[in-house]
């Protein structure tokens, strides 16, 4: 019972901050709301007994991605203070479409038998050790793992190359 109340509180906080992320007038405020929303998702990972991903969520999303977003907001500061509307003119069309998608997905999932399922048995704590060895096991996930690391390296090198100021600061 207490778990359900906690879940509802966290879900509501996360969704409300997510709504602020997409509607906040100042981009910096949106970025800070994004941090709160990501933290709520990390708490939900903990609810799902995926403690490893709760920690990774805090480290990667809040520690790296949110900070990267805040840096980008600051580097484009002149536009951030833009006083015009932050949403496009036909935003209500998007709202109607997204609302229809929400209702449709919920209705489609409601017809599925596994929808009401309760949680299965708790995961074995040794699963994390197994994940560690599976990620470097050639018969398991060594290739996806290596491909992912090359993707990340290539993305970071590419990002530095694209964002680098090649003219030496004179515009």
């Amino acid at each position, binding site marked *: 019972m207490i778990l359900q109340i906690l879940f509802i509180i966290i*879900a509501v906080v*996360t969704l409300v901050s*997510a*709504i602020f*992320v*997409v509607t906040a007038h100042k981009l910096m405020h949106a970025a800070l709301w*994004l941090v709160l*929303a*990501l933290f709520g*998702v990390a708490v*939900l990972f903990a609810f*799902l*007994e*995926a403690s*490893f*991903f709760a920690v990774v969520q805090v480290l*990667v*999303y809040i520690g790296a*991605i949110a900070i990267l*977003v805040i840096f*980008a907001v600051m580097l*484009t500061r002149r*536009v951030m203070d833009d006083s015009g*509307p*932050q*949403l*496009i003119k036909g*935003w209500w069309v*998007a*709202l109607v*479409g*997204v609302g229809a998608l*929400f209702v449709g997905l919920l209705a489609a*999932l*409601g017809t599925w038998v596994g929808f*009401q*399922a*309760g*949680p*299965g*048995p*708790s*995961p074995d704590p040794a*699963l994390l050790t197994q*994940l560690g060895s*599976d*990620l470097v096991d050639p018969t*398991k*996930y060594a290739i*996806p793992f290596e491909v*992912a690391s090359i*993707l*990340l390296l*290539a993305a*970071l090198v*590419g*990002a*530095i190359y*694209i*964002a680098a100021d090649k003219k030496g600061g004179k515009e």
Partner: protein
Amino acid sequence: MIPLYWFLAFSIALFCIGLFGVLARKNAIAMLMGIELMLNAVNINLIAFWRYFFAGDAQLDPTRAFAFVAIVFVAAAAETAVGLALIISVYRRRTTVVANDMNLMKG
């Protein structure tokens, strides 16, 4: 005990909010934030299915979901890094981060 559909409904709601952000926001950085929300919704979904159907059963290879989610994390980080770099690069050249004004290749 929390039923599975609470997590699924939450994940659908978060995905739809993120999608609305991508569709309706003018600012390209804000659109990237919407994409982050959508990726988080997908991760909640994956972890919820793992917890409810795969976690306790060693026959079903429970680390598979972990590998999947880890790849989504890596893809999200790569996507953000490249996306923000592109936005900063566009901002340098055109002094704008509004997606509508990025029309250099328009005929």
